[in-house]
């Protein structure tokens, strides 16, 4: 089973607007999901540059962009991708 890829944007904008605390999403995942994800800080995903500045922080879960990301939003998205690829 391939891993679900979680890329947390560590660009300056995303970091200042909240990504700094998103790396802790690992700890918020239930055990069966925790083993299925690969969480990484990514260099600027450039999503803040297209007029969507107010929607930071951005995260990509298996290519899907999550804006105004919070830990609960990420857990939901990871759950969705896990169900789709199970």
């Amino acid at each position, binding site marked *: 089973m391939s891993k679900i890829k979680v890329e947390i944007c*560590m*660009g*300056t*904008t995303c*970091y*200042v*607007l*909240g*990504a*700094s*605390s998103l*790396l*802790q999403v690992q700890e918020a995942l239930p055990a069966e999901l925790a083993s299925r994800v690969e969480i990484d800080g990514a*260099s*600027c995903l450039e999503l803040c540059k297209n007029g969507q500045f*107010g929607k930071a922080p951005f995260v990509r879960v298996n290519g899907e962009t999550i804006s105004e990301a*919070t*830990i609960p939003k990420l857990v939901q998205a990871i759950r969705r991708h896990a169900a789709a690829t199970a």
Partner: protein
Amino acid sequence: MTFENNATRIRRTLMIELARRYLRHTLDDDVDNIPVEQHPRRGRAVRCCTHHDRAVTRYRLMALLGHAVENETDELKPLREYAAEAQARSEAPAQVLTVIDEACSACVPGNYFITNACRGCVARPCTLNCPKNAIDVVDGEAKIDREACIDCGKCMQVCPYHAIIYVPIPCEEACPVGAIRKDASGREQIDSEACIHCGKCVTTCPFGAIMEVSQLVDVLAQLRSGKRVVAMLAPALAGHLPAELEKVNTALRRLGFADVLEVAAGADHTAREEAAEFVERMEDGDALMTTSCCPAYVAAVERHVPAMKPFVSSTPTPMHFAGKVAKSLDPGCITVFIGPCIAKREEAHRDAMVDYVLTAEEIGAIFVAAEIEVAACPPTPFPRPARRTGRGFALSGGVTGAVAAHVRERVPLKPMSIDGLTSKTMKLLKVYAKGKGAGNFLEVMCCEGGCVAGPCSMAGLGAASKRITDYANAGASGEDLPTEEAGSMEEHVLVDERH
């Protein structure tokens, strides 16, 4: 502070909007548009209406422009005038914290409330266990007589249905020294004589009603003026920006800073002097010495536990030594301390070596506004990296470790620590002041966890501590530097200032 909090997000967004306008030379023309832009007419209001939201945003911007809301004399004064004054003033604003009364929700006094989960039971332990007979059952539900209630909380403990809840006034509960209290209108105000500038009320207030009086525009104006501006990076900053301090060094130079120093180098010096002072004091028969590098703690002693004063080390702080090095190497330069602390502003105000203080949030916001990708900057190494022990000052226990390394068992050192000032640990300080505390070396940090957990930090405690530990481990070890060499160029300018 972790971020799941809209008040923090709003504050940082406004910092970015201000800095962006300043950098684009549109601040004067455009600053009054920010409240409208943030709260468009048909947008969703957070408070009663967009007009109230805009009014509060205007006051937030006033504070971020370095003006205390309490000093407002003309409600119609446009923000551009405040912005112009901010750019024209040559000294940092003196006030550290300000309350936006317009944002304060005047939280209800009285801490215990009976909810509708009350079933009006027969046992009624709430009425029987109340020491003031303040609870009565009316129409099948318990009621608290507000006049008689003393907020002891017994009723909550004994209710079998958990129907009684505790509702704090968050800012008052967070303040370790009782410096924030309601005025006649029920809104909070800060007693400037009692406040220790720790910033706990800022991070706790759910309405974001307490703001720091920022120096953001002051620093940007100094950078634009062409003066040589030197950044001094607190070791705690290593945990709160998206990249290592070597990359931050490059990013700051791109902003126009002439030089970037590690405050950890000053911490090395503080540790050495503080150790010498400790040995001297113990040999003179003293029973206790405490650290002096946390300005909120020092203010707490001065304002609330004066009997503790003789025990506080007289060694200057790492920030002072860093400022002194900067001003000696580059006379006439402007020094800017950058870290997650608010209380440093009060310390800087009294220290000629430090001109301005920026928080981690503010420098982060400036990087965003200047579109500088900190993580993508190439690293600029510090020519003479500070020592591991100096860099470790940012974490609780770090100062003790550094001082112990210098004491080298010349006298016995029995370390104790107060990790976080609260109303409870303030009482412990009073015990120490009476000479009844354990140990002979007391490290006191106002923020639990140390400077890493300052009120204007960005990453969570765990993540930030790990990054600071990496930063410390990459520092020079004491043994790397022979003693004379350790008395480097920087340190020759530092003489013993204790007496």
